[in-house]
């Protein structure tokens, strides 16, 4: 399928190297003390003892992941909920510090999150500008790409919605605009977290096309998704994470087959 051209457009230049990455979340409160006043009090009194008694719980989300991604690759991340896929993406983007191990990247990877820097009370128009600037575009760049972003999102297909506040958009429309803004910039390394699951079928096809374009523009794309189909359509390599560990790393078909066998049970 998508890996027909795997060997032709794939270069030997690494863009992301993960070297034995561990990530630990520290969760305040809600932990040992069940939220009652006495529990909170005993937490305060217990200060200075081990971290556990203070109600700080550690969640070891990623445990020793090592891989190298190359220029021109589109890599899918699969695994059950809570297996550490999104966390790993955030670490690659440099947004979450690693507990141990290192992430090396070429340039600054950008995370295409479904929740970007946008404000619901502002018009779509101002959000396009704000989002563009937030991603580090210059004002001129934002201005020149404005039309393209609005057209791609298809927000104006059903009337002049771009001049309305974003809170008036349906959830699908909001997601489309967010994707359109985020995909407007050419990223060296683009990280996508289940962005394709939103929007109607027509928009999904369009965004898959855009991801393939972004890939051709020499970057590396990471895609987290629970849809095996969108992984199969866009990725040529798949990392399978389970409980924070890398279970399998290989060509899409091979890994997906194993994954489907496992999940079908």
């Amino acid at each position, binding site marked *: 399928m998508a890996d027909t051209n795997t060997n032709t457009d794939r270069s030997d230049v*690494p863009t992301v190297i993960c*070297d034995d990455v561990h990530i630990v979340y520290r969760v305040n409160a809600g932990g040992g003390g069940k939220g009652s006043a006495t529990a909170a009090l005993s937490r305060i009194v217990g200060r200075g003892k081990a971290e556990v008694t203070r109600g700080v719980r550690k969640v070891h989300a990623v445990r020793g992941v090592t891989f190298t991604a*190359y220029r021109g690759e589109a890599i899918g991340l699969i695994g059950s909920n809570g297996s550490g896929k999104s966390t790993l993406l955030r670490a690659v*983007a440099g947004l*979450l510090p690693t507990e141990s191990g290192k992430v090396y990247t070429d340039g600054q990877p950008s995370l295409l999150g479904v929740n970007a820097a946008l404000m619901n*009370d502002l018009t779509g128009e101002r959000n396009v500008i*704000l989002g563009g600037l937030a991603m580090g575009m210059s004002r001129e760049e934002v201005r020149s790409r404005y039309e393209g972003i609005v057209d791609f999102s298809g927000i104006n297909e059903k009337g002049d919605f771009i001049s309305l506040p974003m809170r008036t958009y349906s959830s699908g429309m909001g997601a489309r605009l967010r994707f359109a803004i985020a995909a407007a910039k050419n990223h060296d390394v683009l990280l996508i977290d289940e962005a394709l699951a939103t929007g109607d079928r027509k928009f999904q096809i369009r965004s898959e096309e855009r991801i393939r374009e972004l890939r051709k523009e020499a970057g590396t794309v990471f895609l987290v998704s629970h849809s095996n189909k969108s992984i199969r359509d866009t990725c040529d390599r798949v990392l399978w994470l389970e409980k924070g560990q890398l*279970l*399998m790393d290989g060509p899409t078909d*091979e890994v997906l087959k194993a994954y489907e066998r496992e999940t079908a049970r």
Partner: protein
Amino acid sequence: MSDTQQGGAVATSAPPSVDEGLTPAALAAKYGLSVSGARPGLVEYVRELWSRRHFILAFSSAKLTAQYSQAKLGQVWQVATPLLNALVYYLIFGLILDAGRGMTKGVYIPFLVTGIFVFTFTQSSVMAGVRAISGNLGLVRALHFPRATLPISFSLQQLQQLMFSMIVLVAVAIAFGSYPSLRWLLLIPALFLQFVFNVGLAMIVARMGSKTPDLAQLMPFVMRTWMYASGVMFSIPVMLADKPAWIADVLMYNPAAVYMDLIRFSLIEGYGAENLPAHVWMTALGWALAFGIGGFVYFWKAEERYGRG
């Protein structure tokens, strides 16, 4: 589970052979990859921040617009809110408590209104600063930008808010007999210094608030104490006349009181230089530099740790 484990984490997509055997660190060095999310040097950080200046501007004015977008009167609230605030304080302190001892009504009312607006400027910068990181974790965890962008944006939003308050303030000053004069030009350096001070303070509390979000709960009490201690609604020397002199001195040289007095002096005709402590401009500059630079460095030191879960 067992049969998939047999496949293990073996990389079945054959990596290019040239680089085989290199350790990840050596491979990264060979192709010039850098550690993701490392803290840049101070100069580089300032440069990055400068390149984000348009975002800082857009973000602060977007926040300002969004603030009242659900209200029917919309942006009218930008002016109405400070006006109502001034009215409430005048009712309590001017009429009921008679806190304006030692001043004529023509001086006291602009004195009080200036005090409230100028202190609110610092107060809301601090309140926004505490939540600048902890209240925007989504943004911090989704996008890469120098984090100092956030406290600076929020302080800038408060500066824009203050500009609306200034409309009310100028109207009040004129209504009570202080007419525009060359002295009004002193407002510009005074407000600028206060802004620098506010940004620095916002960055300090932003770092503290990112580690301890509980500060947001504590801060209103700290700010209220500070407000009452800074002579927002009374003249410090007059009210503390029968107390030891050092108390009044400490209160008058605290940054909030210094900036408040400078702005009153610039604006109100009957509030002459005799009300200002000695070396007041140097003090104002000193506070601005100490907090502006100190706060910035303090904030930058933890740059790579913001947004940690």
